[in-house]
């Protein structure tokens, strides 16, 4: 079984590039060049240098003793929360901005939901001195004010997406439209393993540093390169893709995707795509998405804005379809409880997105010999207002 992308841009039956002709030249330019550029020694040198000296990689793989005792297994945390800007998102934006420069692009656009990817994009644009426009749903701009201001401090322009439901999916549409209107000088830095081929593969490659490090770090600590489980939360699926990447073909490693279940999938207020989604086309790729019987995209709900997306990346749809990955769904309440538990047991306040990954622990049947790696995708600073509003600590 092949879990990576094939040469046509598909993961099994998912993926592809379902784009209007106006985007075809942009996507073709990327598709024809991304592998060659990434393989250039010059690219790799700059990428590795920035990951080390600017992002702060390698991030630690930390043995979480008290959580391990509680859940009766060896639990390791991959500390992506210690990356510059506070989440894994920056691994991808560093890679894409170097690529954009090599393609001769002069402007950057991006979409953002919670603002984490927007901040990571604004950050690398400041680093490289490129103008940056971030599209953000008008509703999300209201919900995530501190991140809007962070982007502005970094010099980015934040443009409200006023169409549709005014959230992440609409911000993505607006970014695509902006790209149609600026086809030659602009690069679109997409924030997850979604969108038309080659984006899902390109973003997964930039995030794959996570599992590359896990392998040698685990070898040092446990004398083995492969854990029994790798657990990650999935919005679009970029932190999960990075954490799974170098384990995809190791069938003895169980890959665990954790989705946001909001108020519960039967309430109509959920983002659990593997349960509620059907095959279709979203933002240029064939994948699983939440939609009505008539094929209109349904607005998801989650307490965590970073998981509030109506689809999952095509690679994850394929992992689901082939049963290569297990999917768990974790409600708002379960995620918030897990967030507080991690804070109290390990002294780490996680992003609420990441809290969902921890929320799967009580649902997994773990043995004392199991080695579990949880991808701690981000820190909770950005979520303080939500923690305070929830209040259950």
């Amino acid at each position, binding site marked *: 079984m092949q879990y990576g992308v094939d040469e046509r841009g598909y993961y099994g039956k998912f993926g592809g590039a379902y784009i209007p002709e106006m985007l075809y030249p942009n996507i073709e330019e990327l598709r024809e060049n991304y592998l060659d550029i990434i393989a250039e020694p010059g690219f790799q040198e700059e990428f590795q240098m920035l990951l080390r000296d600017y992002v702060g990689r390698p991030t630690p793989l930390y043995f979480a003793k008290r959580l391990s005792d509680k859940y009766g297994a060896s639990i390791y945390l991959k500390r992506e929360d210690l990356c510059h800007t506070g989440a894994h998102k920056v691994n991808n934006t560093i890679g894409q901005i170097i690529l954009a420069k090599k393609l001769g692009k002069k402007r950057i656009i991006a979409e953002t939901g919670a603002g984490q990817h927007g901040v990571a994009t604004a950050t690398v644009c400041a680093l490289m001195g490129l103008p940056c426009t971030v599209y953000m749903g008008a509703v999300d701009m209201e919900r995530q004010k501190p991140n809007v201001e962070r982007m502005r401090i970094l010099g980015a322009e934040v443009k409200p997406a006023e169409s549709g439901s005014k959230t992440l*999916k609409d911000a993505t549409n607006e970014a695509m439209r902006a790209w149609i209107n600026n086809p030659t000088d602009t690069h679109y830095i997409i924030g997850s393993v979604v969108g038309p081929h080659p984006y899902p593969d390109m973003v997964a490659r930039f995030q794959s540093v996570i599992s590359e490090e896990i392998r040698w770090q685990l070898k040092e600590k446990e004398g083995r390169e492969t854990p029994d489980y790798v657990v990650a939360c999935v919005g679009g699926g970029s932190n999960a893709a990075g954490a799974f990447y170098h384990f995809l073909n190791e069938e003895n490693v169980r890959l665990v995707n954790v989705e946001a279940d909001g108020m519960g999938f039967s309430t109509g207020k959920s983002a659990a795509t593997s349960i509620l989604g059907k095959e279709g086309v979203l933002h240029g790729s064939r994948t699983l998405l939440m939609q009505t019987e*008539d094929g209109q995209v349904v607005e998801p709900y989650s307490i965590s804005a970073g998981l509030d997306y109506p689809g999952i990346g095509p690679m994850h749809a394929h992992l689901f379809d082939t049963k290569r990955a297990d999917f768990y769904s974790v409600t708002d309440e379960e995620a918030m409880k897990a967030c507080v538990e991690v804070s109290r047991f390990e002294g780490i306040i996680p992003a609420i997105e990441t809290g969902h990954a921890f929320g799967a622990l009580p649902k997994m049947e773990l043995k004392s010999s199991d080695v579990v790696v949880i991808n701690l995708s981000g820190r909770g600073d950005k979520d303080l207002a939500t923690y305070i509003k929830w209040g259950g600590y």
Partner: protein
Amino acid sequence: MNRLDQVFENNPEGNLLNVYFTAGYPKLRDTRTILHALEKAGTDIVEIGMPYSDPMADGPTIQQSNDVAIGNGMTIHTLFDQLQGMREHVSLPIVLMGYINPVMQFGLEKFCQKCQEVGIDGLILPDLPMAEYLDIHKPTFEKYGLYNVFLITPQTSEARIREIDENTHGFIYMVSSASITGAKGSITEGQVAYFNRVNAMGLRNPRLIGFGISNHETFSTACQYAKGAIIGSAFINLVRESHDLEKDITEYIHAVKGR
């Protein structure tokens, strides 16, 4: 003979006006009223838009008409119900335009079959990749007598335009500028250079120019460089404001065509 071929054959001098409108907008039951008014007023081709929640290539005007139409309850099922029997009254060529996801959910073969049943001549599905059309769907389109219309833009390479010309039937939709729908303004020198470049290629398909066409002036300029032009957003704005669809549509079409 496909009505699209017929209309180009019957009008060798061109000046063809193709009008886009969103099904179920402004009111759910306006689809047929608008269609009949367009035919009576002398429109040459009609493009009926199937509304979608996430129309990636469309500007605010068409986005908003899509949202309203969906809110009105418009679906592909409803559209086919509304179009049932329309060929007793309407003889102009009709193209359905929409994004691929709703069509996929309806079922592509069933969709094509229904199109033939109600008398549709062609489809514009901008996010259906050409490779997938050729590998999988082409025989289905042909079985039900449907032409697939592809788009080109100022950025489309010559090789790609030739590939599109080979696989398009009816006409090529020549997007006037690098933009989403609804862009305004007059036709620039850069655009004229692009129209001339494409015209010099000796393509087998006629072209219609769309995006940014709104009135008699832009329409007649576009007609100098192609067999005709397509009006979308400007027409949506007209029907949104209209209190008498039949009268306003007739006046508008006559004005655009310069009658």
